[in-house]
């Protein structure tokens, strides 16, 4: 833990609390029937996006997933624009065209969430290829879940990234379930990271409920990627407290299991760690909670007061005008 500054830890804690608060608020908006579509909450998984993204540089890139609020917030996303997108407003990240599942901010290096499981993996690999061809030093963090690790595109992309030594870090957020399917049912080995050995790249399984542990392994993988040594596969074992999406009735797991995982809560654990070590005091944590509450309040207000997109603009963004500059 030595090399992470206190300021950085404060920021990490702030982001984790913000992600959770954002999603709890999103859930409330949903319950109030203010949301047209669906949502995929990552409550319980906050350590993975925060630990990973803080281990990379701001100028690096990420490719996110359908469960991507955490990635966007950790990457510096504006929660006002996220709430607005969630509510389908013109001021949202995608001008209301994408919704919760498609949030992207190219200016921040988030190349986008994706509604198709596993489809972001080859896109991230292509982005890494472009960075290599352009001789840039930036790298790509590729997020995906345990479900995506059974898509063919996952194997093909891992293979290409490995043979071409691309500047990419594969981060599998293994939250134990692909919708309702437990990992144990569809993955024959104990760790998904075992698959990395087939491509001759490092495969590491890490406690996905421990933000510092994640930070440390991703930091090493980022360094390796940036030095041109190729990709690393990291599996972070984590857990989503909520269902897969709004249709989930939790028929496939027990309350006991959920409560067991909550005992490992990444935010509570991190707070315990940093308060015990004396790095962050209760007063500071209280301030973070207040700041987050204010951010959320402002974000929701902004979204609720924002205009809907004009239906006259239905065809906008389908095609790019003109050609090469």
């Amino acid at each position, binding site marked *: 833990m030595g090399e992470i500054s206190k300021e950085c830890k404060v920021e990490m804690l702030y982001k984790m609390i913000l992600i959770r608060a954002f999603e709890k608020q999103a859930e409330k908006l949903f319950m109030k029937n203010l949301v047209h579509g669906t949502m995929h909450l990552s409550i319980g998984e906050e350590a993975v996006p925060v630990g990973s993204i803080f281990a990379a540089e701001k100028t690096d890139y990420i490719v996110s997933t359908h469960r991507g609020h955490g990635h966007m917030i950790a990457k510096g996303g504006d929660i006002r624009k996220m709430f607005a997108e969630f509510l389908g407003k013109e001021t949202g990240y995608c001008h209301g065209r994408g919704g919760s599942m498609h949030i992207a901010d190219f200016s921040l290096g988030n190349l986008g969430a994706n509604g198709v499981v596993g489809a972001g993996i*080859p896109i991230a690999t292509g982005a890494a290829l472009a960075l290599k061809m352009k001789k840039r030093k930036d790298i790509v963090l590729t997020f995906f879940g345990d479900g995506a690790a059974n898509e063919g595109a996952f194997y093909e992309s891992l293979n290409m990234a490995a043979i071409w030594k691309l500047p990419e870090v594969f981060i599998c957020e293994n939250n134990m379930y692909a919708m309702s399917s437990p990992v144990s049912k569809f993955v024959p080995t104990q760790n998904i990271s075992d698959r990395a050995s087939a491509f001759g790249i490092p495969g590491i399984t890490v406690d996905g409920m421990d933000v510092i542990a994640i930070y440390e392994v991703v930091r090493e993988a980022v360094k390796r990627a940036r030095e041109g040594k190729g990709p690393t596969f990291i599996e972070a074992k984590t857990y989503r407290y909520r269902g897969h999406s709004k249709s989930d009735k939790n028929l496939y797991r027990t309350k006991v299991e959920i409560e067991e995982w909550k005992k490992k809560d990444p935010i509570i654990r991190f707070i315990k760690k940093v308060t015990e070590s004396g790095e962050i005091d209760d007063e500071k944590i209280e301030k973070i909670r207040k700041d987050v509450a204010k951010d959320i309040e402002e974000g929701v207000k902004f979204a609720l007061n924002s205009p809907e997109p004009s239906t006259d603009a239905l065809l906008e963004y389908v095609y790019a005008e003109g050609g090469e500059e």
Partner: protein
Amino acid sequence: MRVITYKEALREAIMEKMREDKDVFMMGEDIGVYGGAFGLSLGMLEEFGPEHILDTPMSEASFVGVGVGAAIMGMRPIVEIMFSDFLTFGADQIINQAAKLRFMTGGQLKMPLVVRAPQGSGAGAASQHSQNTEAWFLNIPGIKIVAPSNPYDAKGLLKSSIEDNNPIIFLEHKLLYSMKGEVPEKDYRIPLGKSKVVRSGKNITIVATSIMVKRSLEAAEMLEREGIQVEIIDPRTLKPLDINPIVESVKKTHRLLVVYEGCVTGGIGGEIISQVAESEAFLYLDAPPFRLGGVDVPIPYNLNLERKATPQVEDIVSKVKEIVGGDWYARISRDA
């Protein structure tokens, strides 16, 4: 003027673009030393090196996606699919990703991606290597579909496609690779989304795509000797479709036949005819607009069966005669 083949014209377009823009690169299976399954990229590896002529593993489902990812990062990838039939592997990346990412992100990105794929029958390659695949992608908003019918168009359209900021399915006909035609040495482009009247006539409008332009021109020569003057329009870009020249032509000729190699059902023919029927040209029609497409059958191996499965010159001649001569009326009355 200089005469080169369709394949040489395509090769020139790629090489000239790669020389002027380092962001342009090509990727696909066996495109390096081997020169691609049809030899189109022969010589490119020597000039541009293995990074810009990137041999890929047999992983279409992902390397199309790699093209998507490279495109959003500012590269201009040309992805070669060995046979257009294998576009099925890359379909998620084309349909759900390339075509939609710009829209879904509210216009945050450009997608300058060209997916080149040889298609068409006539080479004895049977059902899995001979299909015409444009219809699979016609109803996907966000992509453009280009299908050149001759060397001159092939070069000009491919350059425009590489320079375009949208995902493009560029369909080359295998039997046209050896077709010779005049191609100027000076730099030129053919804009996407522009139909071309390739032959003027007053009795009937044929809209023909890809190799059917060549066959329709041959049919028109034969029909000319029998006093039937055929006007032929090549849309060149199948999506977006430039319908106006077709509407204007039908207003002049009062008859329409769409000739295409793809299976007749759910193809480009139905779309062109619908658009004409919904236009003022409907009021000028002296006969129902007709389709002459491929038979709804997988492409067979046997030469005679294969020929029978797709429109040949003689089929075009007899169909035109039926429409212009009025026999269509007796036929549809009888069918009724």
